[in-house]
């Protein structure tokens, strides 16, 4: 007992000492460097920068111009992939948005118009009714009606087209990988390692090379979307197959099923529940990513938001943003209803006649056909009449104007207070710590938590960052994320604790958290920009909103699931409620809380490229610039630097959480 106490004391004094020392060094670094006449101490010299990005760029050039697999070149290979993805996409896009045409340029003729808005509306309503109830039909119908009435229809259909293509590919690939891993344990191990790694690498790290290989446009966006959205499907598929009752699997084998039959007629149907959870996640992630991918040419609602943000068109951004939210909620509810329906087997099927059994189908087809036939004479059947379209744009602009005129001082006061009192000091401090010292500290941190392996990893990764000349940007990244995570934790932990100890509050907080999670990351930026204009502060608020969820969720879960025996032991020995919370539940929940903060950091880092839109100067900005210039080397180096920061944070915190669990005896050493 005494000994553990000592080590903790030791380590606390160790950290405090280290911090004070760092602070002193940071303050005097300039003087020391001047005194020693060694400016490289504080600023990594330009001449020492290793041109990784140039190498990468020339490698990519070689890949595209010269690389060949013998029978075909690399470019032909990527073109083939592009083509395969593009065909179904073009078809769906034509169906939903552009209509079918023939000819080129000026001679272009429309053969068939896209599906009429009324038809699509009828279709989603029928789908919702089929999946669940009239109530859902009403909600979904209202959502799509909103899109039409408020002039977001065309963009929304482009976004929908991408989702319609990306989801089946994501689900299909996820299933394939998951099933293969189920039968091949070695492959499962490798796959799990890769998935873990992918979780810590922000999407943007692979956005750039994809862009370079497949060019600016919807295909790149689709590929990025699939890569982003498929992993949860893989995980859920593995989980689902493993959860099948072993007796049922035995039954399959004893019946003489081939592996194919075992998979598709027994395992998959028997675990459809879990697989549908995966599908729902793919849909939501696809929607999120399609929006982000508008940066590389996906078009649609995301593009509208992006261009409004660039123009600082408050109303336009808000409208498109709300349309995204509404589309996301409608699609989420619809797909969840389907998930539940698939496994709901109790529905009694009465035998109606063909006509009444397929009445929904007939109605939808009827509407589509009449729109097609009569659309020329009655244009409102085809497109929602422009004259009746409403715009909330002015309303939002006016509202913001009103807020800004009347409350500008308050907003400004909050902003300046946090900027001056909180953000800037962190930034200055991080930027003034000499790079060599920082690398040393990171290495020590790694060694303390994870032994020499982690120390080496941290050393190499931070060396990579400094050698590539993005040190200052990395420090700004850490500052922005760090400040956001601190505030997110300061808000998230109390919320999580409240949710755990009070059921009523838990329910309300649960709804709040669920809603935050449904919203694509893009959306958070809009209202914040409107109120606080561009800059680091705006970026921080958007990051906090986006990254808050796991901090709340993990804390609530950890505090709630404390071993009840330990709580009883506390009560028996006379602890008050407050004491049980602070002395028993919180310390025991610490490992889980750490994991929540870890997730928060990951989300914060992945938000960086989006916040680059509001003029940050961090690595996210680097990636964003590289994206717009299609500069693979630059983008990849910055992306890797973000990934390395993420990996270092992840490893250190995970190791810390593991140590805590071992100390509490929740995990063997």
């Amino acid at each position, binding site marked *: 007992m005494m000994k553990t106490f000592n080590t903790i004391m030791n380590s606390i004094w160790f950290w405090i000492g280290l911090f004070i020392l760092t602070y002193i060094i940071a303050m005097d670094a300039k003087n020391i460097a001047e005194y020693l006449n060694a400016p490289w101490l504080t600023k990594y010299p330009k001449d020492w920068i290793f041109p990784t990005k140039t190498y990468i760029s020339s490698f990519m050039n070689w890949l595209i111009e010269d690389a060949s697999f013998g029978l075909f070149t690399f470019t032909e290979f990527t073109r083939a992939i592009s083509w395969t993805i593009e065909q179904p996409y073009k078809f769906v896009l034509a169906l939903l948005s552009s209509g079918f045409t023939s000819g080129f340029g000026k001679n272009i003729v429309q053969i068939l118009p896209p599906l009429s808005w009324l038809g699509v509306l009828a279709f989603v309503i029928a789908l919702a009714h089929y999946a669940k109830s009239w109530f859902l039909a009403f909600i979904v119908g209202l959502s799509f009606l909103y899109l039409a009435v408020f002039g977001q229809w065309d963009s929304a259909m482009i976004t929908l087209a991408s989702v319609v293509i990306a989801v089946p590919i994501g689900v299909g690939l996820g299933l394939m990988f998951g099933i293969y891993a189920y039968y091949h344990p070695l492959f499962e191990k490798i796959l799990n390692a890769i998935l873990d790694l992918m979780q810590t690498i922000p999407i943007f790290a692979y956005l750039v090379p994809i862009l370079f290989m497949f060019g600016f446009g919807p295909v790149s966006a689709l590929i990025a979307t699939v890569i982003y959205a498929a992993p949860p499907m893989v995980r859920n598929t593995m989980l689902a197959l493993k959860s099948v009752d072993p*007796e049922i699997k*035995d039954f399959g084998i*004893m*019946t003489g099923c081939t592996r194919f039959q075992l998979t598709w007629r*027994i395992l998959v149907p028997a675990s459809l529940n879990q697989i549908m959870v995966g599908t729902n996640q793919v849909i939501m992630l696809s929607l999120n990513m399609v929006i982000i991918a508008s940066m590389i040419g996906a078009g649609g609602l995301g593009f509208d938001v992006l261009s409004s943000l660039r123009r600082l068109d408050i109303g336009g951004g808000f409208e498109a943003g709300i349309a995204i939210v509404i589309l996301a909620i409608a699609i989420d509810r619809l797909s969840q209803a389907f998930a539940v329906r698939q496994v709901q087997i*109790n529905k009694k099927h009465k035998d109606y006649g063909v006509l009444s059994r397929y009445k929904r189908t007939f109605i939808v087809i009827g509407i589509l056909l009449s729109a097609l036939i009569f659309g020329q004479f009655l244009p409102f059947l085809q497109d929602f009449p422009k004259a009746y379209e409403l715009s909330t744009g002015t309303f939002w602009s006016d509202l913001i104007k009103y807020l800004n005129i009347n409350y500008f001082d308050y907003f400004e006061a909050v902003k300046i207070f946090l900027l001056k009192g909180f953000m800037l000091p962190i930034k200055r401090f991080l930027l003034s710590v000499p790079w060599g010292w920082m690398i040393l500290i990171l290495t020590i941190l790694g060694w303390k938590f994870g032994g020499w392996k982690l120390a080496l990893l941290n050393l190499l990764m931070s060396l990579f960052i400094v050698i590539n000349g993005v040190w200052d940007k990395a420090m700004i990244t850490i500052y922005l994320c760090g400040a956001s995570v601190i505030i997110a934790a300061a808000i998230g932990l109390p919320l999580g604790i409240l949710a755990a100890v009070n059921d009523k509050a838990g329910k309300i907080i649960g709804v709040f958290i669920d809603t935050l999670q449904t919203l694509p990351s893009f959306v958070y930026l809009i209202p914040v920009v409107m109120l606080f204009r561009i800059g680091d502060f705006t970026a921080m608020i958007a990051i906090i909103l986006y990254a808050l969820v796991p901090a709340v969720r993990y804390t609530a879960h950890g505090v709630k699931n404390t071993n009840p025996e330990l709580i009883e032991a506390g009560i028996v020995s006379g602890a008050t409620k407050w004491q049980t919370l602070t002395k028993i539940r919180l310390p025991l929940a610490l490992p889980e809380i750490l994991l929540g903060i870890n997730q928060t950091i990951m989300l914060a880092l992945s938000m960086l490229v989006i916040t680059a839109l509001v003029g940050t100067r961090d690595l996210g900005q680097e990636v964003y610039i590289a994206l717009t210039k299609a500069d693979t080397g630059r983008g990849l180096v910055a992306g890797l630097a973000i990934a390395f920061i993420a990996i270092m944070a992840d490893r250190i915190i995970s190791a810390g959480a593991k140590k805590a669990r071992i100390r509490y005896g929740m995990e063997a050493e």
Partner: protein
Amino acid sequence: MLGSTKFVCKNIWKLFGPDAEKFLTKNPNPSLEEIKQAGLIPAVRDANVEVEEGEIFVIMGLSGSGKSTLIRCMSRLIEPTHGELMLDGVDLRNISDKQMIEIRRHKLGMVFQHFALLPHLNILKNVAFPLTIQGVSVREAEKRAEQVIELVGLKGYNKSYPRELSGGQQQRVGIARSLAVEPELWFLDEPFSALDPLIRREMQDEFLRLQAMLKKTIIFITHDFDEAIRLADRIAIMKDGKIIQIATPENLILNPADNYVEEFTKHVSRAKILSVKSVMSSTLCDSEEEVDGSAKIVDVAEQIVATKTPIRVVQNGQAIGSIDAKKIIEILVKQV
């Protein structure tokens, strides 16, 4: 045809743990201590079984004695660490996967403790499932399924889903499903253990009724000695992975191999199991009345006790021995 050997297990071993096979090649006949010392789990040790055509062969043992492991080895759901399996003279461990699939499709059937019904299919489709796996057309499979569903007394439940049925009904579906393909060798792993006692008895009767009609070769697992006695032609008793005795119920009671077996037999009603023949004395005698040698004691006890003198025992019209009231009373009293 009763009497010819249908299925043979020879020297079946199953040890769980790393490098079990290597261990067994080095030491082909290890003792329990040696196995445990090597860090292995002795689930089945040197099981030898010969099952005859049309026989109900019951494997009985306490929880953890290795019954499930043995039946899973027999059906090759898991690979035995060592041993031979012969079905109709075919060496099951030396055939291709394809052949094994064919044998499973047409010759083997299995009923599971927790029914293992497919939750997403209705009763009709569940029962038809094994046939459709074989490639039989859906219409034909469902026609056959309807027949077996009727056979197990579930007519009218075709459109229900498994979870709408009671446990007993679900197991009837499980039985119907495994019978749909008309298997020759029928495995049942504790099929009635998940049911409450009343339903269990009902299902046992049902099972005997079906077997009287179908005459399958059956390997039946249970941890319930009463159930074993009721159903079995022969019983194998397992302990710590080893089969310690294989005998008819009668023989088990009369000549238990050791205390362990005797402990089981103590609590059963002997008069119901033992036949006159098995307890009579071989001295012939003259008497007015006579009893049939294969009659169970319960059925003739009253008659014998009512007579003061020994009664002649006959079989196929031939006198084979005699029995008296004293013997009967002894048997009845010994019963606890």
